[in-house]
């Protein structure tokens, strides 16, 4: 991880050498990106880093982000049809991009691509739950709604396993309460409305400058890792897809470069940087 940070710094320093080549009069090119709420904060940092990176090549790129639930973003893309304002959807799961491909192929371009992976976390500011969800359950706790939120679906899968064996169809039940989104689940715990709850690792973790992962001081967490027997497989893979939308050639290039920046592959000029994936990992997502 630290190695990645050093790569990022090295890339940054090399960019500084290109500063003298900047054309301050370059025309501004804008793209609009629809971002699922769980990736919203990372996307905000990513957009700024993207604009700063390409400024060193004399390109004035801007990125407008619209952050909402993945479902509502997909709905707005479908209802707007050809008049959609968006160039790209960054979803919180595989579902929405796949649904667009399967059922609305005229609204998208290309195939879905992976851009980040998140992990399910149990989080508390007051109860030591570092070993994971207690058994037997004695305290009300919170999960995102498993019928609408992918993190809730993952949490329900944990609850359905031993030793709890809670049928997801019965949730909310007993000590299990739901919030509509992983965002409201996080704030429900963060503001003390519930003692603990299932949230996204990316909501509670950030990468320190020395490469270590940090969590809010005094808080407790348990991360459900991929090799955890209770972990709900690979549900929390975030995928994106290009949206069919009238674009200028410059916008098309910006969009391709944004996706390259996001995924750490070569851009339209053949340049590769780890800055974008570094920003993603800074929010404790795993990049691809």
């Amino acid at each position, binding site marked *: 991880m630290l190695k990645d*940070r050093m790569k*990022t*710094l090295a*890339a*940054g*320093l090399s*960019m*500084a050498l290109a*500063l003298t080549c900047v054309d*301050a009069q370059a025309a501004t090119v*804008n793209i609009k990106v629809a971002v699922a*709420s769980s990736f*919203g*904060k990372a996307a*905000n*940092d990513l*957009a*700024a*880093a993207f*604009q*700063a*990176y390409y*400024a*060193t090549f004399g390109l*004035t790129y*801007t990125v*407008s*982000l*619209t*952050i*909402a639930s993945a479902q*509502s973003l997909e709905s707005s893309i479908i209802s707007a049809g050809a008049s959609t304002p968006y160039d790209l959807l960054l979803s919180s799961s595989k579902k929405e991009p796949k649904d667009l491909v399967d059922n609305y192929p005229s609204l998208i371009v290309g195939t879905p691509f992976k851009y980040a992976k998140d992990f399910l976390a149990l989080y508390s500011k007051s109860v030591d739950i570092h070993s994971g969800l207690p058994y037997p359950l004695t305290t*009300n706790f919170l999960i995102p*709604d498993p019928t609408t939120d992918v993190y809730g679906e993952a949490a329900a899968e944990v609850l359905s396993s031993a030793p709890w064996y809670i049928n997801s169809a019965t949730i*909310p039940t007993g000590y299990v*309460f*739901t*919030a*509509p*989104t992983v*965002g*409201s689940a*996080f*704030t*429900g715990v*963060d*503001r*003390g*409305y*519930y003692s603990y709850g299932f949230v996204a690792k990316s909501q509670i973790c*950030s*990468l*320190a*400058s020395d490469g270590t992962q*940090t969590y*809010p*001081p*005094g808080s407790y967490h348990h991360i459900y890792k991929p090799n955890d027997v209770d972990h709900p497989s690979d549900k929390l893979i975030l995928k994106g897809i290009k949206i069919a939308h009238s674009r200028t050639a410059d916008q098309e290039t910006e969009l391709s470069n944004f996706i390259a920046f996001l995924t750490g592959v070569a851009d339209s000029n053949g340049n590769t940087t780890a*800055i974008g994936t570094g920003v993603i990992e*800074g929010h404790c997502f795993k990049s691809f």
Partner: protein
Amino acid sequence: MFDLTRKTLALGVSATCLLLHTSEVRAETISIGVAANFAATIQDIADAYFWYHGGGVSFSITSDSTGNLRSAILAGGTTSGPYDLFLSADTAAPAAVSTLGMVYSGVTQSPFFYANGSVVFGSATTSVSGGVPNPISPALVIADPSKAPYGFAAMTILNQAPWSLGLSTTSSYPVSNVYTSANIGTTYAAVSAATYAYGFVAKSAVCRNYGSGETVYTGQNVTNVYEYKYDGSAGLGHAGTTAQTYPQIVQNGIALQRSAQTPTTQALVIDFINYLLTSSDGISYRTFYCYGT
């Protein structure tokens, strides 16, 4: 404190009960255009609003530069305006769109204050314990002072002794080893990636308050910090005062009229503004990101 905890828990339980019926209620969406520096904060506050209001409301948050948001609002007018609520990084943009203020209960809404920002001289690689070096070397970066309030504040600082650079919003940068970046977000990104050894960033990007005072946010790269407060008082990264001052960075917002609104949406927008400004959640999250409230 115990009473407050009991109340909030009770609210949590009642809100959860409300959730059971949310599928029966048509969800209203509040569309917010927010300056990028406040995007993370408003996302937390919007997420927390559920615990105050209950279900039936969702948010669409567009994060962009104040200039772009202002242009989109003026272009849309009251018929096809994109946002119900505009949270700017300055006072000028809300004033410029105030003729589009939402008419609620017969009253046209005016701009309101929601946060004070502050600038921090920071570096990802180099100690800045003495503040901005004199002479300035290597180069530093500030946000474009002609467009970004945070950049204007940085420029104002650098125009005072001992540097007295004589910078202006129309200077042809770089000047005296001072470079500019498009906005405060890109400025932070450039400092974070060590494109520049150091620069003036928004305090909210490098500071957190977990309830026991403001501290340097260690979950990011720019951990060498020296705050310049508008009034020269002690700040993040140092206990002493600074000789330099600048006009306080005031961020205003305004509720906007648009044809897509229902009366229910309008009432929700006004309720959300009150929540942002006066609730313990709204105050706590603004304080968490080290904004002045």
